[in-house]
């Protein structure tokens, strides 16, 4: 059967067809839909899937699944591998029982990421294979091959996509699921307990394995030599292959579906067969560096093609030919349309108050990172998942060393707090930190589209489970002042912040308002009484897309779009003239 699937949906299908049984992930664009698909379409077909609390845990769960004897997979976005790097670098030594795949989605162009790191380096670092599909069909088929490679070579395998592979949809021919018997639990102390005495032996095996994989790379169907004109030969991987193929349909192309280890002999032969060698790969010169180390002359690579951002057919064509394609430039100076908090979002009240009080805000990864944008501009650092609390703690110590009194505020969401904020809070309490920690609990993993987590009390597969009580957890950690806040009540929120600013030691403020998008929260829209509106623009400070300032025929006033307004009353509370009516007022 032919269907249209995104790369991520195809990977989920591939896992099912490969007889995969245990999948674990932490949500992260552009990887999220793999586990979402598994937990909905394949939950009744013998596939166990879970949202783990973070990527390290997800990989360890998948390692456990492999040890228990069933094909297992962990999925994450590129930066998640940094969190999972600890188990990754050592499971590379132990190898696997049943097949083990780490699926990672990179984000060239940083559509929704904080950096543009290239996951292929982790494959070389861990000395394990890296497989890269270039279409949805390959995403499914190659994943099945990845499991075979994992088992044949006793190695975990990195399965790397990019945004354009994960989120692009294409035609996929479905096949039946493979019925494979579980291998059962394997007890092998020397193989799986990485005491130095065992690890020393395993390292030797890892190096031998890499040699064998290098030989395998020469013959695998993952790498394809498409013979064409000898004028130019292009080596390409992933979606770059598609751009290269379309830009130069007649060229010889060496399409690499396995980018670590590389087929060195094949590359040398390919280079010899063409007059001009071109390497097209997004992000780092990963293939190129290896090719050059082989002593092969690369005519066009990163000397012409960019290191940053994603590629396109035009970028590839212009870099290779040196010719500019005549085309229109985008219209300049157009009004921008950046993402913003949804009307009714609980984050809006928080940032409205913070932009008035102006503390230093140590931020984190989630929808609430948008608080860094105008009109709030009220987030002043954001590095990675969980860094808000530990960062604020460090700031408080740094300030105290200079005798400066300026209590910092950390802002973190519920899912991110559970991911890696808890340890930061324990650290802050233990080390007598002095900061305000705001946990914006909206009962979902919001930015990635609303996934479950331990705080929602429901698993990925929809099973009711123990609901983590964040408030009690913070109390148990030893935080003395744990206070529930209502971000829809601006006056009260401001009072609490001012009070806590004056106190010594950590304060934990928890908002427990549901995500309006996920839970479809909607109240009666508000209206502006034009007679009372003085055009002071105070309401615009809340930064809501439902509000527009109108200047018509000499009159000036704010207008509220009833199709967008969610009735949250935050703008109403900013109005000193009672010009915004509704919501009981």
């Amino acid at each position, binding site marked *: 059967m032919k269907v249209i699937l995104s790369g991520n949906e195809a990977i989920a299908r591939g896992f099912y067809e490969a007889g995969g049984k245990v999948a674990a992930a932490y949500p992260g664009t552009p990887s999220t839909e793999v586990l979402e698909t598994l937990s909905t379409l394949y939950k009744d077909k013998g596939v166990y899937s879970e949202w783990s609390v973070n990527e390290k845990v997800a990989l360890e769960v998948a390692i456990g699944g492999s040890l228990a004897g069933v094909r297992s997979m962990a999925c994450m976005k590129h930066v998640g591998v940094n969190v999972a790097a600890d188990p990754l670098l050592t499971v590379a030594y132990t190898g696997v029982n049943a097949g083990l795949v780490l699926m990672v989605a990179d984000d060239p162009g940083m559509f929704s990421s904080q950096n543009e790191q290239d996951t292929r380096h982790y494959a070389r670092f861990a000395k394990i294979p890296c497989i890269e599909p270039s279409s949805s069909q390959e995403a499914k088929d190659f994943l099945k091959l990845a499991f075979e490679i994992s088992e044949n070579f006793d190695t975990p395998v990195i399965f790397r996509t990019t945004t354009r592979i994960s989120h692009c949809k294409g035609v996929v021919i479905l096949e039946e699921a493979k019925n494979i018997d579980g291998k059962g639990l394997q007890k092998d102390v020397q193989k799986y307990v990485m005491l130095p005495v065992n690890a020393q032996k395993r390292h030797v095996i890892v190096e031998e394995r890499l040699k064998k994989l290098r030989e395998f790379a020469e013959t695998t169907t993952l790498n394809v030599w498409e013979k064409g004109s000898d004028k130019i030969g292009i080596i390409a991987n992933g979606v770059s292959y598609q751009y290269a193929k379309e830009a130069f349909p007649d060229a010889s192309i060496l399409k690499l579906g396995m980018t670590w280890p590389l087929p060195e002999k094949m590359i040398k032969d390919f280079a010899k067969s063409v007059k001009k060698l071109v390497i097209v790969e997004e992000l780092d010169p990963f293939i190129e560096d290896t090719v050059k180390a082989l002593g092969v002359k690369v005519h066009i690579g990163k000397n012409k093609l960019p290191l940053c951002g994603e590629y396109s057919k035009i970028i590839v064509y212009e870099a290779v030919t040196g010719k500019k394609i005549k085309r*229109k430039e985008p219209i300049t100076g157009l*009004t921008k349309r950046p993402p913003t908090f949804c009307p009714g979002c609980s984050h809006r009240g928080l940032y409205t108050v913070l932009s008035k009080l102006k503390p230093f805000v140590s931020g984190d990864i989630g929808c609430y990172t948008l608080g860094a944008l105008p009109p709030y501009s009220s987030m002043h650092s954001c590095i990675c998942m969980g860094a808000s609390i530990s960062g604020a703690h460090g700031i408080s110590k740094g300030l105290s060393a200079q005798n400066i009194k300026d209590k910092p505020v950390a802002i973190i969401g519920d899912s991110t707090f559970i991911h890696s904020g808890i340890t930061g809070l324990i650290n802050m309490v233990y080390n007598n930190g002095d900061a305000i920690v705001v946990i914006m609990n909206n009962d979902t993993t919001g930015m990635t589209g609303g996934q479950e987590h331990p705080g929602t009390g429901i698993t990925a597969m929809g099973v009711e489970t123990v609901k983590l009580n964040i408030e009690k957890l913070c109390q148990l950690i030893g935080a003395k002042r744990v206070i529930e806040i209502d971000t829809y009540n601006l006056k009260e929120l401001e009072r609490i912040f001012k009070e806590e600013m004056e106190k010594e030691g950590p304060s934990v403020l928890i908002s427990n308002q549901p995500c309006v998008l996920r839970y479809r929260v909607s109240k009666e829209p508000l209206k502006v009484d034009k007679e009372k509106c003085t055009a002071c623009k105070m309401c615009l400070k809340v930064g809501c897309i439902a509000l527009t300032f109108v200047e018509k025929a000499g009159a000036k006033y704010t207008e509220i779009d009833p199709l967008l307004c969610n009735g949250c009353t935050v703008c109403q509370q900013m109005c000193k003239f009672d010009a915004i009516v509704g919501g009981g007022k």
Partner: protein
Amino acid sequence: MSVTNIIIVGVGGQGVLLTSKIIAESALDLGFDVKQSEVHGMAQRGGSVISHVRFGDKVYSPIVSEGEADLIIGFEPLETARYIHFLKQKGTVIYNNYRISSITVSIGAEQYPEDIDEIISKNANKVYAFDATKLAIDAGDKRALNIVLIGASLKFLPLDKNIVLKNIEKNVSKKVLDINKRAFEMGLNIFNVRK
């Protein structure tokens, strides 16, 4: 080897992605190779959204290049203008002329360009604008906007009306099917599509 290139643009939440899906599935049903690409993750918060749909005998790149689009389907004027450089010389633009404010306008940092319709007309040869939001509301729900636009776009696409309707039925919930069928019919009627 000809490939039909479509760019669909709008504001997060308007239904750009569902439109892309229905067009892509209809092309597949006609035996075409299809690729569709979008970037989501932050789209639901009122940001700008662009989706690429390509179909033909064989499609390689999942994204349409600048200057290559046969058709731009715009859900909102400002977003139509933002991506109009994707249009090829003889390409067509159809767009919903109902304006949606941006957050930068809401906070008073920028103005919504009053002359947005002229900007679009100046940058394309074949331009068709109409209030698809109003038609959707007339059909019974403003969210049927995307189906109105699919109906209208069929004038310019080598797709079969009945196959598209079948894919609409497959992709919208039964509760709102009648509304969407009405919306589809209204869209078709704009350019008298009978095929």
